[in-house]
């Protein structure tokens, strides 16, 4: 029930905030703040009361099932695992910051503003919690409208265009997802006789390869647009730069994360075969996004647009990691979701502070603020460093884990992805240079951060440092959930995976050995066990046959981790396994 209360609290708080404007102009702010603080306290309480060690084999902490539209098999079904819990805490934390930064920035229609703010957050909370696909789509849409209003009413000059674009992009892609949901619903129904939208029931729907592919693309449409992945990213810079600061924070910090969350929660477990097929392309898109976003970020003059493009770049790591299908990468993705939410949110907040003082977002008109506003300079420096991936800050852990994981899946793409870190350094330092170091173009007075602003900035610094220095609690919390998501990809029980994880020497011949099944993708494979994924089944089957091909003791250890990582090569003839790989494979050929 507590899960429901979290959402109800936000929704009721929103309505109350809207109405309370009549009684007192400051009341909406306090109501919003109070609702979010309560929710954060609830989430943290859940987190503290269930230490990671006590988690058993099931990753689910709390579940809630209420029938809603029984005729259609729709239930008000919610569940909380480590992944959702982390996302919820991020949601409420950023929500509180969003209320605080709007304290002075938003002066018109405050009641309606806080209504929208809380309802966006309610929609996002719902997305992170719901385990019913109908309900998921419902919340997916619920968060759009208030966001549209946040951009369209309180945004900057070009807000209408940006709001439209945001809305139409996300709505169109969402409808494709709805079609896929319905397709899955009917396929499941016709096979089992129970028509249901329940996630847990739909999980093991056997799908024909073509159907799986089509359905997956429907889901991907929604998530890749939201993430965004490069060809679909064009709504993001407009929406981010035109939104008010609170809107940008929520967009960058939370809305993008719903896309990543959707990939983890739905695409991976529902369509393992199709996802494996698509993985090289997805990773390629991720790498393109990383580099393209970084280059575009470097060439922006509008500070908020610049930060927006860094999001494109950072989200490239997310998709790269998700489609690496191993625990390292997924841990990296979760860390990236949280760290990026904090660091980019913070950069938008700093952009907001600057805008409040200068009434421009053009970095050519900024400069020399280091001397005038040292506090702001230090804080900006922390988050710029976080954004470029400096060790000791959250983003470093995230990107490192992601790259380690994706290296096991695809070496070359990972090499290119790593160049993104260099590019990140270039654009991030440019922010510092242009805004804080160069000589000042104007001689206007420039007040430093006041108490309220420090109150916003300091917790973020603390959080990002904590994530960078001691990420273990976060990793522990996410781990059972992630293993669950990867269940379809790892045929052996958990314990052995743990062992495997501990013994992987990352950069050794062994790593190459680990990728051997990639060459066994087709019937031509040297080991002659190419049944993998040609089954049209769940991939599992193929892998189990792989297992059978070996006597127990000769089966190369650790292959289970990555055994399906590069079944398809993205280029015809390109990205083939090197001769060395083949040599390795000969080496590990089972003895007769």
């Amino acid at each position, binding site marked *: 029930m507590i899960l429901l209360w979290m959402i109800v609290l936000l929704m009721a708080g929103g309505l109350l905030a809207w109405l309370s404007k009549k009684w007192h102009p400051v009341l909406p702010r306090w109501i919003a703040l109070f609702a979010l603080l309560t929710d954060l306290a609830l989430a943290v309480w859940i987190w503290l009361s269930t230490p990671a060690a006590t988690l058993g084999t099931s990753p689910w902490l709390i579940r809630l099932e209420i029938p*809603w*539209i*029984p*005729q*259609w098999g729709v239930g008000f079904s919610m569940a909380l695992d480590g992944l959702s819990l982390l996302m919820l805490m991020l949601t409420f934390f950023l929500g509180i910051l969003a209320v605080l930064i709007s304290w002075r920035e938003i002066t*018109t*229609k405050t009641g*309606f503003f806080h209504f929208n703010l809380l309802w966006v957050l309610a929609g996002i909370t719902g997305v992170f919690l719901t385990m019913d696909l*109908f309900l998921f*789509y*419902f*919340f997916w*849409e*619920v968060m*759009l*409208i208030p966001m*549209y*209003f946040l951009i*369209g*009413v309180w945004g900057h000059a070009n807000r*209408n265009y940006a*709001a*439209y674009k945001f*809305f*139409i992009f996300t*709505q*169109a892609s969402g*409808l*494709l997802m*709805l*079609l896929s949901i*319905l*397709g899955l*619903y*009917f396929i499941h129904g016709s096979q089992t006789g129970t028509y249901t939208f329940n996630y847990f029931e739909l999980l093991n729907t056997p799908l024909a390869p073509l159907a799986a592919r089509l359905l997956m693309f429907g889901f991907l449409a929604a998530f890749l647009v939201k993430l965004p992945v490069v060809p679909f990213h064009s709504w993001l810079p407009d929406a981010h730069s035109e939104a008010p600061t609170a809107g940008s924070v929520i967009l960058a910090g939370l809305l993008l994360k719903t896309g990543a969350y959707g990939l983890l929660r739905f695409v991976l477990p529902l369509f393992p075969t199709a996802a494996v097929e698509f993985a090289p392309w997805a990773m390629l898109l991720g790498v393109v996004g990383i580099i393209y976003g970084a280059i575009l970020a470097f060439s922006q003059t509008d500070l908020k647009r610049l930060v927006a493009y860094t999001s494109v770049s950072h989200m490239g790591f997310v998709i790269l990691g998700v489609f690496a299908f191993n625990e390292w990468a997924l841990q990296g993705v979760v860390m990236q979701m949280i760290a990026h939410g904090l660091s980019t949110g913070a950069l938008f907040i700093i952009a907001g502070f600057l805008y409040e003082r200068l009434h421009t977002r053009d970095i050519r008109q900024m400069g020399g603020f280091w001397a005038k506003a040292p506090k702001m300079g230090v804080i900006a420096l922390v988050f710029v460093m976080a954004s470029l991936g400096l060790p000791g800050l959250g983003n470093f852990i995230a990107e490192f884990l992601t790259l380690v994981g994706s290296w096991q899946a695809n070496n070359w793409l990972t090499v290119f992805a790593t160049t993104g870190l260099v590019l990140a350094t270039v654009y991030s330092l440019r922010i510092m240079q242009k805004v804080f170091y160069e000589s000042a173009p104007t001689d206007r007075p420039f007040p430093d951060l006041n108490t309220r602003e420090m109150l916003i900035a300091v917790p973020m610094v603390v959080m990002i440092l904590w994530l960078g220095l001691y990420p273990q609690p976060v990793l522990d919390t996410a781990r059972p959930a992630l293993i669950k998501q990867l269940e379809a990809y790892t045929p052996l029980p958990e314990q052995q995976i743990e062992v495997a994880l501990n013994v992987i020497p990352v950069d050794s011949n062994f790593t190459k050995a680990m990728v051997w099944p990639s060459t066994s993708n087709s019937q031509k494979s040297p080991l002659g066990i190419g049944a993998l994924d040609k089954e049209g089944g769940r991939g599992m089957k193929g892998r189990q046959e792989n297992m059978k091909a070996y006597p127990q003791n000769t089966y190369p250890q650790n292959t289970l981790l990555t055994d399906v990582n590069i079944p398809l090569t993205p280029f015809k003839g390109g990205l083939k396994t090197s001769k060395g790989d083949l040599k390795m494979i000969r080496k590990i050929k089972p003895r007769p």
Partner: protein
Amino acid sequence: MTQNDFLHLMPLLILTFAALIIMLVIAAWRNHKIIYAITAISFVAAFLSLYELQDVQAYAIAPLFVIDGFAVFYIGLILLASLLISMLSYAYFEQREEQKEEYYILLILSSLGACTLVISTHFASLFLGLEVLSVALYTLIAYLRSRERSDEAGIKYLILAAFSSAFLLFGMALVYFSTGTMTFSGIAAAMAGFQELPLLLLTGFGLMIIGIGFKLSVVPFHMWTPDVYEGAPAPVSAFIATVSKGGVLGLLIRFFMEVDGFRYPVLMLIFTIVAIASMFAGNLLALMQQNVKRILAYSSISHLGYLLVAFLAGNQMGVEAVTFYLVAYFITTVGAFGVVAMLSDKERDAELMDDYRGLLWRRPWTATVFTAMLLSLAGIPLTAGFVGKFYILAAGVNTQLWLLVVMLVLNSVIGLYYYIKIIAVMFQQTEAGQEPLQKLRPSILFASVGTLSLLVLLLVGIGVYPTALVSLISSMLETFHPVALR
């Protein structure tokens, strides 16, 4: 006719008598409030008389009518919509100079026509119902004679409707010629005997589709819609968009299910083309409009296209989806036109974008209602429109009408654009402060504000908890004999 027949036709009889009584009362004493009270009471009474019929098994009054669950549901829907529209009309006409009493006679008569349509099982009763509906509508559309565009709209509707009736009649004649009967079941039996459709019968169906298509204002028979919607008084536009179309759609479902037209690829092809064309033409043309009433007109064309998608599914789920969507569409359309009516002044209806600029800050409540209605038209969650669209998509996916389903999705996105355009205009910041609340008389206030509040509650209620409506519809459809057969 037996006593039982009378009992089953009670809602229609009440409406007939109400029209007569109002006519007599007007002759004696012209008073808007009293006439309105009689109208409202008769609608309510007719609706309550349905209570007796709630568990009705298909009761045939051969050969003209049949009263089954489907009919009862549609009659109920029509009556409720008419009641709400009459309430809006009361607030709307109270502010105007014209003689307003006769309006209610016409409103009742056209509702009667729509009710007749949904219980018809014979060409004669079909045509009778259609003409009662149309003739009353001619006058309703041109009711505010002094308005610039009302004559144009009235004449346009008159000529085109007469034309379409002629097509319909000729089509019926051809069907009669081929099958030798005018009852739906007789036609179905005759058609079952044919190996394939004879050309004359097919021509007959084609001509009938023209007549029906005109009433439904689907492409390519939609030309009249925007002009008539624009010229007619706002409540009348709401009436045309809902009751008139709902009645005809009910008839279409009954006829098509009875003769099982889904077996014939050529008929399916015609309807598929019509559905896709309606969605696209409606939405694309709406994009270019600056007039709110015209936008709503084009949007209603595209919504009929959506409805046809579920109709083409042709199974029980399809009929349920059509019915559910129709309920959502009724609520939304009446609400939207209700807002237009509420904002209208003595000279003209509030139909320009300028009338809505910054409405949220001037009249927050009205703007919220309108926003809710538009979001429902766009199919956004928490509104009935979302569940309806979901239902239609489900019906389409279920019968694998992929082309239609994808077109529907594409059109939903196009549609979003113009709905949002209106919303964006309403949310624009203007200098004007909040308007002082108008001092309305309590009766008017109740009629307009009360109606709109009720509609919003229904909209959100169905959007959040559709279970009740879904089970009501499926239980009502149990006695719908063509569906039960399939």
